[in-house]
């Protein structure tokens, strides 16, 4: 499987290229950047359900931590600590810490499942510089007609791509 690779090092140029690629209806496969470019997500209409899921993880986390605290401190083993009531104001502190832990772990797990990555996975795509400061646009060559390919190369050239390559 061969891919057309355009390398950029300026995000504004990349965004310009993205605009023209969308206008030309190019089959863009992937864009790899060293940092999040939110405008890019908006342009390609990529919406994530992770924020909503994180909210539900938070609700689940806060109720489960509360239930665990209530069970241990009130029902199972009500211990008299300094004359305080067993069901007490110290709960929010532990609930806060617990909810952060549970939400973060669950969200990261969800992200791993959605992106189909896991620790120790072999890289799907390698190119010099993409782990550094280079941004690349990948286009699947098998879906391109020769005219389309020429047009895309023109777009990449016009928007100031550092390098146009094939892998």
């Amino acid at each position, binding site marked *: 499987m061969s891919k057309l690779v355009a390398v950029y090092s300026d995000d504004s140029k990349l965004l310009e290229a993205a605009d023209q690629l969308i206008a030309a209806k190019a089959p863009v496969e992937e864009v790899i950047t060293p940092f999040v470019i*939110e*405008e890019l997500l*908006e342009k390609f209409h990529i919406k994530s359900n992770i*924020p909503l899921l994180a*909210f539900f993880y938070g609700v689940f986390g806060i109720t489960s931590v509360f239930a665990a605290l209530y069970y241990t401190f009130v029902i199972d083993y009500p211990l008299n600590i300094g*004359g*305080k009531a067993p069901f007490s*104001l*110290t709960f*929010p502190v532990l609930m806060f810490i617990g909810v952060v832990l549970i939400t973060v772990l669950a969200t990261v797990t969800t992200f791993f499942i959605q992106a189909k990555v896991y620790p120790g996975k072999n890289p799907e795509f390698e190119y010099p510089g993409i782990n550094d400061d280079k941004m690349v646009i990948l286009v699947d060559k098998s879906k391109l007609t020769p005219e389309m390919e020429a047009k895309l190369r023109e777009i990449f050239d016009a928007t100031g791509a550092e390098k146009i390559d094939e892998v």
Partner: protein
Amino acid sequence: MKKRFIFSKKLKTISFVLMLIGLITGILAYSADTHRFWTNILFNNYMFMLLGLGAAFWMALQYIAEAGWSAAFKRIPESISCYLGPAFIFMLALVFIGLKYVYPWAAPEKHIEDFAKYPEFQKLLDIKAPYLNSNFFIIRTFVFFIVWLLTIGLLRKFSKKEDAEKANALKWFEKSRFYSKVYIFAFSLTFIFAGFDYLMSLEPFWYSTLFSIKELISGFFHASALIIIMVYYLYKKGYFTFMNSSHWHDFSKYLFMGSILFAYAWYFQYMLIWYGNIPEEAEHYFLRRFHFSESLFVLNVVINFFVPFIILLPNKLAKNPKVLLAMSITILIGFGLDVYMSVFPPLVHTFAGMGEHIHPVFGLYEVGILLGFIGLFMFLAFRSLAKRKHVIPINHPYIEESLLHHNAH
């Protein structure tokens, strides 16, 4: 796009009518119950003073963070902080005339019964006397206000210079940035003591080192709510035609963050005192929660934390200006309640009557004087806004970024 803010006749009449109501109820309250009059002066003046300081803090924060999006709204915190001048005058009146009516440590002769019943109170007051005495209190009031007025005045001066000299705009911006740091440092340092003086010394036997931090956070949080209300008003009047959902979203982030910060500050003080369970410390909350009003005590956290937190959580609601306006008004009511819960309970309670139930005082005098202060505040803020040639700063280096501001989400 309109350039200069026009202080309309209607608005002027409204503010003058409000001030007149305040003046009349003030005179009535003074002749009927001097004690209650000075309590109200402290309550209202402290509230608007804190809003002014918080707004200046908001503005200084924009400078030191080099925030681009907020450059166009710079005039609004500037005009809110204009209240500090009159706040100084009211505070001086309070310090020179009303001190004996408000602060129990300044008038021990009024509490002779209490001291007879609890002789150790006099001992405690004697120990605190080197700090809590009227002369030092007056000196401190002068120091606080001179520091605040000087630093905020410098920021305003630089802002005016920036408007006047297009070629030197960057130089004045850099100076504003530096003096923002100075303001934040000086304000945090002096306000710790101001909080101890003006509110905490209402109960001279109680102290908490966290108290002023909570007040400082509350000032910043509630001032951002007031800024949103003023921005909404100007937006409706057609001054901020460039505004889009990204601007509103950034404003709502301040409310959201502030509500969490406020709840945190409220909770750490309450939790630590509850956990420590030392009678001298717990008395503060015991008075408010069990002898004053438990429902108001709980309502304070509900209005200032739970309501804004839950409503501003969904992305769509957080970008809606009408929701933001409703939230800001709710939060400002919560601010009133918060200061009310600080100021009023110790003043309607006597030491000898400890353990008795007391009723919240809120009558015509409170409403009238509050309206008067709102009128005065409106007049000062809008007048200062109308004095400037442009509502939107013209030579600010980040103004373009602010006008074209756009967030991806």
